[in-house]
């Protein structure tokens, strides 16, 4: 659109706005001090509103017009720049996360947020395997988080097993349930799969509420053992057998928080490492191929059911690890923590970050969970800010923060694949 046409278009929009606002804003009946009604005229406000509409419309058409000129395939210059930045961005973020507990001014509160963010980074990375790589829309991911948490809580309560034994068991149990869920539902596609996984998430929660004799029902399970430093508890007594006593440190409650922080940091990195490795392996490539075209996969001799099940199981396993961590961190769990909104938040992180993008998911988790905490003093406005931010991201970057795809292998050089070509998966 030429600038002249854009101005004309904006003028028409302003005219329409004037027609609307002249009566709605421009004229107002008020009660005069004498008790009678009189007509107040507010033409300045109308002019202001029309001006805003004019400027907004003009900016929008000029900006959209500029965008329409770009070729649709291939990464945009901005994306390329971001990609170049990204090469330093990810290590920088990693380094920042690594030294966070020792940065002066970082207290207990900041570390707690850090732990929360990293938990969601890990959950996002776990779900990214299912949704981002294999293209299976899973709305019940929180079920595996719950299974992990309850696995640890119950194993610790009934059998007195330590966290380090329960952690892999929680992952295995969650993966097992992932397979159990996967078997019947993986022949479903897209929306149908989403609804069944949503139901599965709810079923797990309802079972946890109603099986009161095992899970404590709505009261949850309290007194879950806290993690130990490979057998050394973080007790405040500072005795010989405690963490502080063994290393000759002043007993401090922050030791445990720092330990928890590094624990989830390590677990999240493990998730990332396994995902990155798997993506370069035939299994990960088969997941991505499945997302791109299931029928073509079948014609190449790929067993679709097994491939989908493996994605489901591995994604669920990391959800289970995160759940076990959640249980040991909180020392108390109840079905309240595993409602559908959790699944929705994790899915939102994956979608906002960009399906399949590890860095994107981490940034989205930081923005969503961290941002949510930062805006805590906005009180009830917080949800509004949050919602608006999501809308803005989805309008500006409909394929998520990073929608492009990096090839897993190349003969000469790896070139970024534009987001238009990358499939989203239909189940």
């Amino acid at each position, binding site marked *: 659109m030429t600038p002249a046409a854009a101005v004309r278009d904006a003028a028409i929009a302003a005219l329409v706005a004037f027609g609307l606002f002249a009566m709605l804003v421009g004229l107002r009946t008020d009660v005069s001090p004498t008790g009678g009604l009189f007509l107040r005229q507010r033409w300045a406000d109308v002019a202001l509103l029309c001006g805003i509409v004019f400027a907004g419309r003009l900016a929008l058409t000029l900006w959209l017009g500029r965008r329409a000129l770009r070729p649709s395939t291939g990464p945009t210059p901005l994306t390329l720049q971001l990609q170049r930045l990204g090469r330093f961005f990810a290590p920088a973020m990693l380094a920042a996360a690594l030294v966070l507990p020792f940065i002066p001014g970082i207290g207990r509160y900041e570390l707690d947020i850090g732990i929360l963010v990293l938990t969601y980074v890990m959950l996002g990375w776990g779900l990214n395997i299912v949704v981002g790589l294999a293209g299976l829309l899973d709305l019940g991911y929180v079920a595996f988080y719950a299974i992990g948490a309850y696995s640890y809580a119950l194993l610790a309560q009934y059998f007195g097993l330590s966290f380090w034994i329960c952690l892999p068991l929680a992952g295995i149990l969650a993966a097992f349930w992932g397979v159990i869920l996967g078997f019947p539902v993986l022949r479903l596609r897209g929306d149908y799969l989403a609804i069944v996984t949503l139901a599965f998430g709810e079923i797990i929660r309802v079972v946890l509420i109603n099986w009161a004799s095992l899970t404590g029902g709505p009261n949850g399970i309290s007194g879950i053992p806290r993690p130990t430093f490979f057998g050394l508890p973080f007790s405040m007594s500072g005795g010989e057998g405690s963490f502080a006593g063994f290393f000759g440190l002043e007993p401090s409650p922050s030791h445990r928080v720092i330990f928890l922080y590094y624990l989830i940091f390590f677990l999240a990195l493990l998730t990332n490492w396994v995902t990155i490795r798997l993506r370069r392996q035939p299994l990960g490539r088969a997941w991505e191929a499945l997302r791109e075209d299931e029928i073509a996969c079948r*014609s190449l001799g790929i067993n679709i059911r097994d491939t989908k099940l493996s994605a489901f199981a591995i994604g669920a396993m990391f959800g289970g690890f995160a759940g076990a961590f959640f249980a040991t961190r909180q020392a108390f769990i109840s079905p309240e923590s595993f409602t559908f909104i959790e699944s929705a938040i994790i899915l939102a992180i994956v979608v906002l970050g960009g399906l399949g993008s590890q860095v994107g998911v981490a940034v989205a988790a930081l923005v969503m969970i961290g941002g949510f905490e930062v805006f805590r003093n906005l009180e009830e406005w917080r949800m509004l800010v949050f919602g608006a931010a999501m809308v803005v991201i989805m309008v500006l970057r409909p394929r998520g923060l990073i929608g492009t*795809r990096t090839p897993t292998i190349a003969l000469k050089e790896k070139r970024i694949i*534009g987001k238009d070509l990358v499939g989203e998966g239909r189940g």
Partner: protein
Amino acid sequence: MTAPDDRRPRSEGDRRHPRGMILEVAGLTMRFGGLTAVSAVSFAALRGEITAVIGPNGAGKTTLFNCITGFYRPSSGAIRLHRTGELPVDLHGLPGHRIAQAGVARTFQNIRLFPGMTALENLLVAQHNKLMAATGFGIGAVLGLSRYPKAERQAIELARHWLSATHLLDRADDPAGALPYGAQRRLEIARAMCTEPTLLCLDEPAAGLNPRESEELARLLQEIRAQGTSLLLIEHDMGVVMKISDRVVVLDHGKLIADATPAEVRADPKVIAAYLGEGEEDEVEA
């Protein structure tokens, strides 16, 4: 009417070709509700030959193809793959991915590549089963304890071979979806060949290609045949069919009306009638 379990060997074909047949279709019938798309079709594709399936639109060619490659389960009849030194495999009872594993690869009428993956990645996905076995089914590979690097190098070599055979070597790192149409067709053939099939089934490989590209395609298919893979193709481009096929099977209204050499088919009055609509083609006996 041919009985569904008819499996007469094509004796004249066997005599001509001592290596015998590779694919045997016997009494194949496919019904969709009241519509019989393929009716009691029997023929054989011979080892080391290019067999073309032709026929007017709606003759049941693609249905036949989908039965052979496991996308449809036939209503009755049998499809058998004869591999050298092995027992014949009944394809009609196998799920789609097992048919591909048995050595039947296919391409699609409307190209089905993985558009967001590079050409090279497309060819590596095609070697999934071989690579997967080398990784110890995923677990070994994550830990880095396997024969995987060597297997991957071999897979890349095979991919490179087919990329250069299809003149796509310089596009190897481009996303498949960004390739021009003719290149996508060639890449799909390369991808099918990377599964190292004994029988390659091509669904209208020349559709949408210009004459020069058709020419190249014909050369590529002959090369593939020379390397020992048998081919079965559906094609509308008679120039390509008559030039490269060793045998032509003609379908009309779901029935087999001819199964002969290209020259014989060209002279067959039933085939001419089916294509040009002369006479009462509905009454033509199979």
